[in-house]
């Protein structure tokens, strides 16, 4: 993102204890509020702050064809379809245009790492709340260390 955030990320990633604390803080916050599944490359801001990785098929680009007429998931009829929730929420928040973004395949190396630090280090798209969607060329970066 910027020199400063990159420096912060680099510093954190060099210090395992600090990194673990950041990761723990992020998990406590995101797991409790969004049901975060720890994919390490957050797309919450595009999906109206509903985590799409809670979908059994982990669909990142929209719902599968099996959503039930009452908005329930095809796999678990007693749960809502995540993409149904995302759409309803996006409609309410006026963020439907953001659903049009194409999300690249998940980088599995980033799983169980801190999405915040990955964002700071410029590995993933920034959580940009104010600006409209645009394609940002991300520099190729090594995945973060795992201890």
């Amino acid at each position, binding site marked *: 993102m910027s020199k400063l955030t990159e420096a912060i990320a680099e510093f954190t990633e060099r210090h395992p204890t600090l990194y673990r604390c950041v990761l723990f803080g992020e998990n406590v916050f995101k797991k409790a509020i969004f049901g975060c599944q720890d994919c390490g490359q957050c797309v919450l801001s595009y999906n109206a702050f509903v985590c799409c990785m809670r979908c*059994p*098929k*982990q*669909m*990142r*680009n*929209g*719902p*599968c*064809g*099996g*959503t*039930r*007429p009452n*908005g329930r998931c*095809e*796999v678990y009829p007693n749960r809502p379809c995540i*993409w*149904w929730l995302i*759409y*309803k929420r996006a*409609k309410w928040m006026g963020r*439907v245009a953001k*659903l*049009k973004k*194409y*999300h*690249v*395949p*998940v980088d*599995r190396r980033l799983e169980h790492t801190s999405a915040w630090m990955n964002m700071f280090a410029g590995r993933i798209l920034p959580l940009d709340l104010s600006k409209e969607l645009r394609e940002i060329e991300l520099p190729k970066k090594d995945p973060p260390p795992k201890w």
Partner: protein
Amino acid sequence: MVSGSRLERLLRQGEFVVCGEMSPPQGADKAPILKKCEYFRGYVDAVNLTDNQTAIVRMSSIMSSVFAIEGGCEPIMQMTCRDRNRLAQQSDLLGAYAAGIRNVLCLTGDYQTFGNQGDAKGVFDLDSVQLIHTVADMNSGRLLSGDELKPPPAFFIGGAANPFAEPLEMRIIRLEKKVAAGAHFIQTQPVFDWPKFEKWMSAVRDAGLDQRVFIIVGVMPVRSVKALLYMRDEVPGMSISEECIKRMESAQDPKEEGVKMCVETMQRLRETPGVRGIHIMPVMWESITPRLVEEAGLLPRPEPLPVEEETTAEPAETS
């Protein structure tokens, strides 16, 4: 022209195409495929070979497609994201192309708990939009990782759409993503609910998507009202109108009525602007296909014109 497959050539010539569908056998023998090919050869332009549909173990769609070629049918190989990660998908695609398969339909796949291997691990490494994008990338000579691919394949890429699932706006967004990712054709769920289908189709036309992708709409012959009720209650994402159910219920001969209903839908689809073909899904009733195609007035099937020299020399295009 991307792949030069029969399906693609006919579509680009402006013909109204007919596709069939068969499920590969649940045993280690190719004879059932060759037998089913007889119901399709000359009656449809291409046949879908399903990839462990409803998560039940069957012969692989790649090998089944190869046997379909042997049986004289052009295959549309289905590929799901449930059983393979991106490595296996890309290597299977290379093998499939080398074996003469030119059409591929990219799907996410039914969840594993629906089938006979409920304890399996679902892979879902990519989703169907990403898989379409991957195939398009491979067409243009690159693997997903960015590494060069030489020589590249040239697939005619398909995606699926469900006109009956809600919410409509989200469905159109997703369809648009598939087209942008590089899908050339779209196949849909079977139509048993005309008003809902019309609504979807007009949304597709309003978004201009019928001009950017070939839309092939599904139809299904049913033999009894029980099959309809089963689909309504058990198959997620299907919509069956009351009218269809009433009609099948009150029919003297449900089998005949099912055929009649299917033929009527086919004829109606032919008149619908933006629909470029139909996809017949005769689940376990492949032998009815010739009759359906004939009664709908879609015989004889056209032959594709020979491809001109220059179009074959062109590098594979991707959008």
